[in-house]
Structures are given as structure tokens and as C-alpha cells.
């Protein structure tokens, strides 16, 4: 049994403009101590998935409308708010994107850390303070005893994120969700914070879900990667396998839109044309079809499930032997993957049925 099992998770937001189809049936598993990357562009449902796991979706708009989330066998979606609160911080913790806003500006670091520790343990104030000092030292904050009394605005962004990491790991959670933990930081600080996160979680055996849009970050940090697009997982594989053999047209497109050091000089980047689909519409067909160079006529109407790249193989969900799976009717060949575009003679991406072409065109104009 995996530590975290998410199955068929569906999250929708009810807003005044209608329903937002944020997450449309996402399944993944995370083993104890495993690091999983959740990659995709803004709005693809990465953060919503993690907030749904934490049961922290903004209310009353956000709803989990289907699926199951099991942590160590406990069905999280069935817990009462009080039971869930007891679990948060102790079993599963979270680090947020912007360290500048995720600490309360009017409370000292001491107040915020000791509060967290004491909310879940029987420690006395002195014990909790000692633990907080120890944690701050562990995340590399100099003079932790004096810095503990400081307010958040007296820390730099990188230091604040270290404090957030210290708070998240204070109670030895078994799963840590890091939602773009370094996006708001300078590149040099990014590397330090990521290394710290890696070292601390490896030491304590904490499983990590690392959410990011930065493929460079996941490459160095994770064992497995889920690529998300428009509320679906479109490709999943071990990190090494994914970078060696990217197989979904979207993943191929992502990798080709990043400049590479080993690229031939003057070789152009290949951007993914178009924009992500409007998630205010119920999804029909493959969500990537409108932007895909490999699309078939069937792609407009059929959304294929995640299936093993090599048919007939038993599917391994977690670990180093996890099966490489993609959701695609017409995966690129290795040559096409390398080129970043279809090279089969005479192949033309299937035109949209009916008005869909106009929809795509207007979507681009509106953007």
C-alpha cells in the first residue's frame, strides 16, 4: 500500500461565471520517502490537486466532486474537519509558493513556530521553544536563538522559506507537499533551498510532492514525475525515463520550449502554439488536441486514459520501476520527439470538427 493514493480525483469550482473544471480525474500514488514531481503550466491543476489532498480548497467555491484520497489507508475526504486538522502538520504538511506572504506579519517567528509545535504535541512552552531553535538551526538560520524573536519582515525571502520548511517539518510529517517552493526566490537561493529540502526530507524519510512548472527543478529533485495538462495527468514516468524518452506531445513540446546548453547554435526553440483550453467548459476529447501537432481526428472526441507505453506490461505505480504511461492516441516516434515535430510523410494534424477551429482562433485573439 502506498503512502498516498489519489484515485480519480475530480475538483470543480462553482463561480459566478460558471463551473471551472480544474481537476478532471487524476490518479497517482506516492510511496513512503518517495519524491514525486507534479509538472505543468499555470492553471493546469497542480496546486488545486495538492490543496484538495490537504482539504484546503477555497470554500465555498471549490468542491471535490469525485475520487478518493487515501493517506496511509485513511480516506481523507471522509474525515471531519477536526480530524483533518489533527492530521495536517502531523502527517502531511505543505510549503507554499511565496514565503513573503505565507508567514503572519504581526507575529514573531517564535510565536508562529511554537504555536505549530504545541498544537499537536504535549510539549511545554520551553520544550517547544527549544525544538524551534533546533529546527531553525537545522534549516541553516544563523543565531537561531535571537532570530526566533524576530518578525517575518526582518528575514529575506530565502530565509523565510527556510523558516517555512522548518515549520513544515517540525512534526515529522510523512508527506510534504511543496507548492512551487522556490519560484519566488533568486536562482542562487533556489538551489540552496532545494538542496536543503532534499537533504532534510531524505534524512527523515519524508515523502515529497514537488509542484513546479520548472523542469530543471524536478530533474534534480524527484524520482518520478507526473506531467499535468488542463486538469489531467498526461504522462507519468520515472524522472530519468521521462527526460530520456518524453512521449506525450505536450511533454515533448515542453522540453523543446526550454533552451538547452547542448543545442546547436542558432537552433530555434519550438514553442507550443496556442493557449491552454478554457477550463470553464466541460472537457471534450483530448485537452491538448487543439495545440497538438500529432492530433488525429479521434483526438477531438476521445480522451485516452493513461496507459503503459509498452502494451501488455504489468503497471507499476510507484518507485524506481514505475511504468512509463501516457494518455495519447498518436504518440510521437523517437525521431519526431528529437525533432519536436511530426516527420511522417504526408501527416497533417486533423482539423477540428465544425466550429472548433473558430473557437481556437477566437481564443487566441482574446488572449
Amino acid at each position, binding site marked *: 500500500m502506498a503512502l498516498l493514493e489519489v484515485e480519480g480525483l475530480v475538483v470543480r469550482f462553482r463561480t459566478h461565471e460558471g463551473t471551472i473544471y480544474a481537476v478532471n480525474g487524476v490518479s497517482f500514488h506516492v510511496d513512503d520517502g518517495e519524491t514525486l514531481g507534479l509538472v505543468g503550466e499555470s492553471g493546469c491543476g497542480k496546486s488545486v490537486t495538492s490543496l484538495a489532498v490537504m482539504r*484546503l480548497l477555497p470554500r465555498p467555491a471549490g468542491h471535490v466532486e469525485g475520487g478518493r484520497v487515501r493517506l496511509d489507508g485513511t480516506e481523507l475526504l471522509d474525515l471531519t474537519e477536526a480530524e483533518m486538522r489533527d492530521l495536517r502538520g502531523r502527517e502531511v504538511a505543505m510549503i507554499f509558493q511565496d514565503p513573503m506572504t505565507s508567514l503572519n506579519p*504581526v507575529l514573531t517567528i517564535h510565536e508562529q513556530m511554537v504555536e505549530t509545535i504545541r498544537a499537536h504535541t504535549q510539549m511545554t512552552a520551553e520544550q517547544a521553544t527549544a525544538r524551534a531553535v533546533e529546527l531553525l538551526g537545522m534549516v541553516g538560520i544563523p543565531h537561531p536563538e535571537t532570530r526566533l524573536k524576530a518578525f517575518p519582515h526582518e528575514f529575506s525571502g530565502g530565509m523565510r522559506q527556510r523558516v517555512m520548511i522548518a515549520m513544515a517539518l517540525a512534526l515529522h510529517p510523512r508527506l510534504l507537499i511543496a507548492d512551487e517552493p522556490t519560484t519566488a526566490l533568486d536562482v542562487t537561493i533556489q538551489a540552496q533551498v532545494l538542496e536543503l529540502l532534499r537533504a532534510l526530507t531524505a534524512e527523515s524519510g519524508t515523502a515529497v510532492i514537488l509542484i513546479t512548472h520548472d523542469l530543471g527543478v524536478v530533474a534534480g529533485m524527484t524520482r518520478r514525475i507526473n506531467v499535468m495538462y488542463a486538469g489531467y495527468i498526461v504522462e507519468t514516468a520515472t524522472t530519468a525515463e521521462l527526460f530520456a524518452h518524453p512521449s506525450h506531445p505536450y511533454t515533448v513540446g515542453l522540453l523543446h520550449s526550454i533552451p538547452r546548453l547542448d543545442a546547436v547554435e542558432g537552433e530555434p526553440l519550438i514553442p507550443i502554439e496556442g493557449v491552454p483550453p478554457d477550463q470553464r467548459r466541460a472537457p471534450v476529447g483530448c485537452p491538448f488536441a487543439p495545440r497538438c501537432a500529432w492530433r488525429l481526428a479521434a483526438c477531438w472526441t476521445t480522451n485516452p486514459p493513461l496507459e503503459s507505453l509498452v502494451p501488455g506490461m504489468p503497471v507499476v505505480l510507484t518507485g524506481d520501476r514505475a511504468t512509463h504511461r501516457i494518455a495519447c492516441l498518436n504518440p510521437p516516434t523517437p525521431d519526431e520527439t528529437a525533432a519536436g515535430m511530426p516527420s511522417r510523410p504526408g501527416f497533417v494534424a486533423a482539423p477540428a470538427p465544425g466550429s472548433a477551429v473558430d473557437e481556437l482562433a477566437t481564443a487566441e485573439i482574446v488572449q
Partner: protein
Amino acid sequence: MTAPTIAVTRPVPQRASRGLWRDAGRRLLRNGPALIGMTCILVFVVGAVLAPFLTPYDPSIGQLADARQTPSLTHLMGTDLLGRDEFTRVLYGARLSLQLGVISVFFGLLFGILIGASAGGLGGKVDALLMRIVDVLLAVPGILLAIGIIAWLGRGNIQIMLAVGVSYTPIFARLLRGSLLALRETDYVIAARSIGASRLRILVRHMLPNAVTPLIVQATLALATAIIDVAGLGFLGLGPGDPRVAEWGEMLTDSARFLQYAPYLIFFPAAAIVISAIGFNLVGDGLREALDPRLRH
């Protein structure tokens, strides 16, 4: 390896921040209008506190023979139609007005915080119900509401404080609820929830301290209108109920009939009302600027 550095500008020494309130206090003292406002209030506070030492007269006893004297050295602001010293009555009136104003705003804050915090903190049906009640209260003009409450509870100082306080409650409640709603979606509140902090703890420790700033500004501004409202109630004959007590509003009513003969009798209490109200207004505006993080440098 040492990187070449180019000093373009001399580094500005970073002034150590000593906390929000001390910084705000320093900015307030550098704000001209706010200083004027504070001076006005200070004059009235000192006058009210030291009234027995500043004037030899009694505010409720006068010599009928001395009635309606024009301002002179013996009676700085003249005497009223019962021969009482006007200056003494304005000073003692300041006592009552400041007292009633401050306490009624305090009542308003108390009720407003209770309602606003319950609505913003609990949300859902509690929020909907409380806010509809507040909407109803807001729909009734404040002074009318106050008159209604006094008509119901009878005349007296405590009734005035409650009446004016209740008429401010919906303003504070709305303001606090709005701040709390905005804070509910902030990163640090979600972060606090993500580590399992309880609802009450988040409300009391994380949200309320961040929501008090606008309340303080609004309360200071409300002091200005509270003083006017108290005087207004007095003017309408719903003052403390004891004709011997000096109250600015009642002083206006009493002198209005003699406007043609003794205009100074209406001038001084009116000026006292206006100056104290402007004083609180200026301080309130100054506080708003001093506490606004966007204006901080």
C-alpha cells in the same frame, strides 16, 4: 575571487524598524494636520480634566443678576440666560462630551467586533444572518436609531452611550467582517491551516491582529461624529436629562432663542463641537496615513 563592485549611490543606512506601532507613531508626529488635530484634542482633554482649577465658577450655579453678559475679563465667554459662566460650562461640557463620545465609540467597537468577528470568523449561515441584521441597522439613519433607542430606554448618560454606540455597531461590524473575509484567503492563513491550527486560534491569533488597523482608524473618525451625535441628541432635547448639567448640545438649544441678543452664547459651544470634531477627524486621517503600508517608506 572578488567580484568588481561599482558603488553607484552611497548605501542608504537602513533605519531599523521598531514595530508597526512605533513606526506609525513616528509618522503621525511628522504629519502636520494630525499634529494640529492632536493639539485640539489635547486642549479639550486638559480643559476637561483641569476644569475646576481653570475657572472659579460652578457650571450649574449662576447669579440671575449676571445673566446674558457679553464676554469680558471676569466672564471670558460671557454668561448664559441664567447667569452661569459660559466658559466654565464649555469646559465642563467638554468633560461630558469627551466621556460620552469615547464610551459610546467603545460600545460600538465592542458590539461591532463581536458581530464582525462572529460573522467573518464563522462564515456561512451565521455570517448571512448577522449581516442581514447589520444591513437593517445600516438602513436606518444613525441619529434616528439613537433617538429610537433613547425613546425606548429613557434619558440618561448610559442610554446616550448605548444609543450612539449601537448606531456605530454596524459600521464596525461590516468593516471587521470585510477585513476578515479578505484575510481568510491570505497565504499565511492557509499556511496556518495547512499545519493544523484550529479555527478559533486562526481567528484570534492570525486574523484579528491583522484586521484591527482599519478599525482603529475608523474608531478615531467615529469619535468625531460621536461628539456631534451626542451634541445633536442634546440639541433635540434628548441629552442627559438634568438641566443643570453642562452639555454642548443643550447649551445650543438653550441659547438658540436668544440668537439675536446674545449670539456669542451659541458661538462658543458650537465652536467647541466643531473644533473637537475636526481634531478627531485630523488625527483619524493622520492615523490612516501612518498605518497604510503602501505609504510607508
